[in-house]
């Protein structure tokens, strides 16, 4: 993982932006207990990460941005940070894997990376819950069904539908993040090349 000075600075600013988002917006959403806050934070973070990937299209750049954001989150004030830290790093690694497999950056690879990355907050409790806090998989599963019941209005007995609906929501939001990242990244490239240009969205 070797980058030039200019690339390191670009990665630093995108990492700082993601870190800032996690420190400010993340802390606010978590303290207000906003539903699906993990999904929204992941979508914003991955949007920033993938735009950064357009400017530094090398292997490892996504993990690098994730590492900077994770360290900034580690040293932020507030409550327990181990969950968000694992979340940030997990999302960055998943996005890195998808974007590296795709080799050439394309809209499709960005959509897939976004969908896969945003999907991580849904499965993270199944890994960190039992490993870190000794929660049983069953209680994590019950929490998931409870979310489906409260926010999607589905009965807890319709477990399959709840899971499918949640997967669809997470994938769609992630896909939108990927789509937007591709568009915004290219608009930015044009904008930074020529200062006076009509940007049509």
């Amino acid at each position, binding site marked *: *993982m*070797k*980058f*030039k*000075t*200019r690339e*390191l*600075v*670009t*990665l*630093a*600013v*995108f*990492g*700082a*932006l993601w*870190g*800032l988002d996690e420190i*400010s917006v993340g802390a606010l959403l978590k303290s207000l207990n906003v539903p699906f806050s993990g999904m929204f934070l992941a979508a914003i973070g991955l*949007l920033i990460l993938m*735009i950064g990937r357009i*400017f530094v299209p090398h292997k490892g750049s996504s993990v*690098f941005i994730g*590492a*900077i954001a994770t*360290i*900034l989150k*580690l*040293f932020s004030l507030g*409550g*327990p*940070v*181990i969950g968000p830290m694992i979340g940030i790093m997990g999302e960055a690694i998943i996005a890195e894997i998808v974007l590296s497999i795709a080799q050439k950056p394309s809209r499709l690879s960005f959509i897939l990376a976004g969908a896969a990355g945003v999907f991580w907050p849904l499965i993270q409790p199944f890994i960190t819950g039992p*490993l*870190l*806090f*000794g*929660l*049983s998989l*069953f*209680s994590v599963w*019950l929490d998931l069904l409870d979310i489906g019941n409260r926010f999607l209005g589905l009965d807890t007995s319709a477990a399959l539908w709840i899971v499918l609906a949640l997967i669809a929501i997470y994938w769609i939001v992630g896909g939108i993040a990927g789509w*937007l990242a591709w568009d*915004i990244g290219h*608009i*930015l490239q044009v*904008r*930074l090349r020529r200062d006076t240009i009509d*940007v049509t*969205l």
Partner: protein
Amino acid sequence: MIKQKSTNLPVESQPEQLRLGTISYVAIFLGLIFGVMLAPADRLWMFAIVYLIVAGIVFPISLKRILRLKMLILWIIFIVPPIFFLGEIDRSIWGIGYSSEGALASLQFAIRLLVVLVTVNGFTAAIDIVSVAGMMERFGMQGLGFSLGVALNLLPTLQQSSLNTWHSLRMRGGLRHQRWRGLQLFIITVMTNTLRRAEEIALAAEGRGFSPEHSRPLPMKKGTWDQFVIIGAILSIICAIII
């Protein structure tokens, strides 16, 4: 008259040799986290007592931090629900029914959470950002120290710039009708400002002749007990698996 003694430069005292270096703190952090993760449920309390004693000695301030009201509320939110909702309600106390299975699960959860919170809080307070960056640079992320320095210095500027953009957009009614487009413009403006700033920093760094290939990795604090602590951390994980 100038006294002879005052003309002599004071002898610089030797910097105190640290007992625990960065690598020690990382080893303790990983040892405690993995230890509590891998400890069997029936002997968890035993491991937790040992881990909390170690954490209390190494990170004395973190136990105090954990006892803040915010943390206690967070703890109650996590711990109380399983007592009533996990498993069948088979016992009662003062007329309130609860599940013994849920109570046991809650107790285990509380113990693990306590060790994790004390360790994470203590770890973040004990080490500095430079040491973490230096360590990660040694593990293959070359240039991370430089990037992290840039990121840290940029945080307040980025925050102010994002807030200014948000307020300008809101005051001009940018979020009233075409909200989606307004949000896209917000992101584009923030990103453009960010990248322009990056350009300036890159030019300044290149102007000073900075090159990631030729720069030294950031320093890492070394302690006299580092090797023993690493061995201890490995042993603690092995014990959690075997016992």
